[in-house]
Structure formats: structure tokens, C-alpha cells
């Protein structure tokens, strides 16, 4: 029993050597990590733009003055947005990636593009709900004060509501960013060479699964810890105007 443990520990060094250092294999992890980060950032930008647009359309639709003729164009957009968030939030991320890759873009070889589309559109639906909640969380008196001064709807949104909403939703947005970062690992199933994909290839080549997978788990964890720290720092800075 003890002898077995000693042998296992004895072999750990060579196993990790084979998984990370031999034949400059670490470069593959680095490339994978870069792909993962690129994918996260581009999908995050796409998702945020999409999410904010959807949130504004849905809030604007909900805040139309009662008793007046509803804007039909806005009504149609609102229905589209509702269908979008329902479908995306109601189906598994994995299934969405498979559909984008094997059904919608089945003839495309640009896996990175497919990954961005799948992750960005998924993230957009969640960001939309977060932003919508944030816009609604700002006291109604704030928009009444803005409008009563003669500011238009868009100016009131831009200078008064959105800056306050942003502060309220920052924790949720940070969490969404972290979730998205981790969800990028799912794209390895469509052959996009992200960090997880690289690890599974190396593990398969060496017939040794523990070192690569534990290794990338630590890499993901490190980045999430850094992101969480940055998020906390940003929140504290934005809170300053409340405390003064």
C-alpha cells in the first residue's frame, strides 16, 4: 500500500514532464489558451452588444406610455427578442454548439467563427436579461426626474439610467463573463483547438489523462481567480460615489 503510493509519486515527475515539457508540448497549451481567451473576448463583446440592444428594445417596449397607440415596429422587435431569449435560455449550450456546427454552418470550415457565433448569441440572451433587470432596478423617480426636466427618453437612458444600472449589474455581468470563459471549453467537441481540445489530444497521444486535465483545470481556475479579483476592484471603484 505504502509502496504503491511511493511508486505513484515517483512516476508523477516523468508523467508531468511528458504532458507539459517534452517536445515543447507546452506551446500547444499556450496556443490553446490564446484561442480560448480570444474566443471569450470576441464572444463577450458580441454578446454584450447583442444583449444591451435586446434589453433596450424590451425595456422601451415595456415603458411605452399607456393609453397611446403602441409602436408596431417596436412590438415586432420585442416579439423577436422574446423568442430569441426563450430559445437560447431554454436549450443546452452544448446542443446549440452542435446545431450551429453541424446544421447551420455545416459547410463552413471556420471553426473559430462558429464558436464566436454560438457563444456570443448564447451569452447575449443572458446579458439581455441581466441588463433588463438592471434597467428596471433603477428607481422610477430617476427617469421621472430626467423626463420632467425636459430630457428625452434616450438622453435619460444614456446619462441617468444606464450609468446607475451598470453599477447594479456589474456583479452579474462579471459572473456571466466567467461562465462564458468556462463554457468556451465546450467548443472542443466541434474541433476548435481551444485549451481543452489541446489537453484532450495530448492526453490521448500519451495515454495518460490525469496530468493534462488537472493541468488545464488549474489554468482555468487561475484565470477565473484573476477575473474575480479584477471584478471586485472595479466594483469598489464604482461604489465610491455612493460612499463619499
Amino acid at each position, binding site marked *: 500500500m505504502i509502496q504503491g503510493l511511493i511508486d505513484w509519486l515517483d512516476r508523477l515527475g516523468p508523467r508531468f514532464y511528458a504532458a507539459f515539457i517534452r517536445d515543447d508540448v507546452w506551446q500547444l497549451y499556450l496556443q490553446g489558451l490564446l484561442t480560448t481567451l480570444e474566443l471569450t473576448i470576441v464572444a463577450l463583446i458580441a454578446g454584450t452588444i447583442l444583449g444591451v440592444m435586446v434589453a433596450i428594445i424590451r425595456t422601451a417596449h415595456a415603458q411605452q*406610455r*399607456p*393609453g*397611446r*397607440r403602441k409602436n408596431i415596429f417596436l412590438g415586432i422587435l420585442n416579439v423577436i427578442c422574446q423568442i430569441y431569449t426563450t430559445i437560447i435560455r431554454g436549450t443546452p449550450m452544448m446542443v446549440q454548439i452542435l446545431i450551429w456546427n453541424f446544421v447551420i454552418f455545416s459547410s463552413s470550415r471556420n471553426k473559430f467563427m462558429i464558436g464566436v457565433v454560438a457563444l456570443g448569441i448564447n451569452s447575449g440572451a443572458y446579458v439581455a436579461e441581466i441588463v433588463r433587470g438592471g434597467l428596471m432596478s433603477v*428607481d422610477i*423617480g*430617476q427617469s*421621472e*426626474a*430626467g*423626463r*420632467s*426636466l*425636459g*430630457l*428625452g427618453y434616450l*438622453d435619460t437612458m444614456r*446619462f*441617468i439610467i444606464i*450609468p*446607475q444600472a451598470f*453599477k447594479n449589474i456589474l456583479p452579474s455581468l462579471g459572473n456571466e463573463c466567467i461562465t462564458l470563459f468556462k463554457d468556451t471549453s465546450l467548443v472542443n467537441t466541434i474541433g476548435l483547438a481551444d485549451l481543452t481540445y489541446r489537453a484532450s489530444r495530448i492526453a490521448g497521444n500519451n495515454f495518460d489523462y490525469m496530468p493534462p486535465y488537472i493541468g488545464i483545470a488549474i489554468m482555468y481556475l487561475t484565470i477565473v481567480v484573476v477575473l474575480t479579483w479584477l471584478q471586485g476592484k472595479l466594483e469598489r471603484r464604482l461604489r465610491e*460615489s*455612493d*460612499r*463619499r
Partner: protein
Amino acid sequence: MIDVKNLSKSFGDHLVLDNISEHIYPGEKVVVIGPSGSGKSTFLRCLNLLETPTSGTITFNGQEVTDPKADIDKIRQQMGMVFQHFNLFPNMTIRKNITLAPVRTKLMSQAEANDTASALLKRVGLEDKADAYPAQLSGGQKQRIAIVRALAMKPKLMLFDEPTSALDPEMVGEVLEVMKELANEGMTMVVVTHEMGFAREVGTRVLFMDGGHILEQNEPHAFFANPKEARTQEFLSKVL
């Protein structure tokens, strides 16, 4: 200045304002009093369309406010409003709170607006607070700033929605003082309040509302000395 004709407002099945007609003349200081739920705040909020009337028309200086085609932003620029809960913008300095609307509506350049803000702040004795944030101020200071913010738009009419109801008793005086000065300068004012002393001293006309109706109105001295309606007498006996 403001003409209200057959104004009704209901929230769902609940009728809050029942067929009100009223006229407010330039220079008047109309004080609206009444029990909670009598519709006085809703009446005030209908005047600048923060509440959309269910029926009836409101005309402000010849423009029909309730016309769906009316440029409501333009009309609101001429009507200042002060809220019970101040509603200062917590994400901006006091100066920015005051200058945002005049600059964005192209009434003034940023420099002109800054000068206006300084002059107005000086008038209410808060010139040293220009760079502070709302969270650093007391309730009375916030409400004085809120009045100044509305005045920066150079409105022709000021609406006050229970401006002292959310204040500590010792801060009520400083806010009423600012309102009194404003009244003395000839501003047309509509004030919903529970401050009977203010109504008596500053008001030129008192409206008593109950159950969505204007039950009784008179100039303040006669109103408080000889209320005619039984409901008014009952209300005044409780608050005075």
C-alpha cells in the same frame, strides 16, 4: 396659464381623478391639500404628463399637453418639478445634476450652465457643494438642490409634489424658505403639501381635494377661517 378640462384618471378600475376642471393663472401660488389617496399628487403629475390622463384635456400656454402629437419634452422644459424624494442623480456631482438638462436641451452652453448653476447655488447658500455628490448632502440640502435643478431650466411654472414630506422636521424650514423666496419673485407655483402654515402664508388659493374631486377652494384666509364643506372642516380639525 394652465387650463384643465374634464380631467379623469383611473388606474385599472380605480378612479383617482373624477372629471376635474380647473384654471391656473400666471403668478398664482396654488396650494393643493387633502387626505392621502385623494388624488392630489396624481392631479399634479397629470399636469406635466408624468401620468397620462384617461380622459380630458390639459392646455399649457396655448399648447395642448394631452395632444398625442405634442412635443412633451419641449413642454416639460417650461415646467419645473420637485419631488417628495428629491430624485437627484446619485451618479453625478451637484453641478452636473443642475447643468445636464440645460446643456442637453441646448438651452445653454456648458459654460453658461455652469455660471447659472453657481448663481443659483449661491442663492440657496450651497455654493460650496457644487462638486459634492448627492449622497454627501442632508435631505434639506438635497431638496434645495432639486429646486435649483428645476430652476436652471428657467421654467414658467413650478410643480411641487409634497416637497417637505420626506424631510426631518428641522430641515423643513430651509426648504420652505427657498419656496417662499421663489413665490415672492412671482413664480407661478402649484404645491401639493401638508404644510398648512405654508398654504396660509404663501398660497394665493387653496384647493381641497377628496375622492378625486376638488371639493372646495378659496383664498387661504377665508379657507382656513370658514371652511364650508363638512369634509373640509373634518380634515382641517385633524391637521390644524
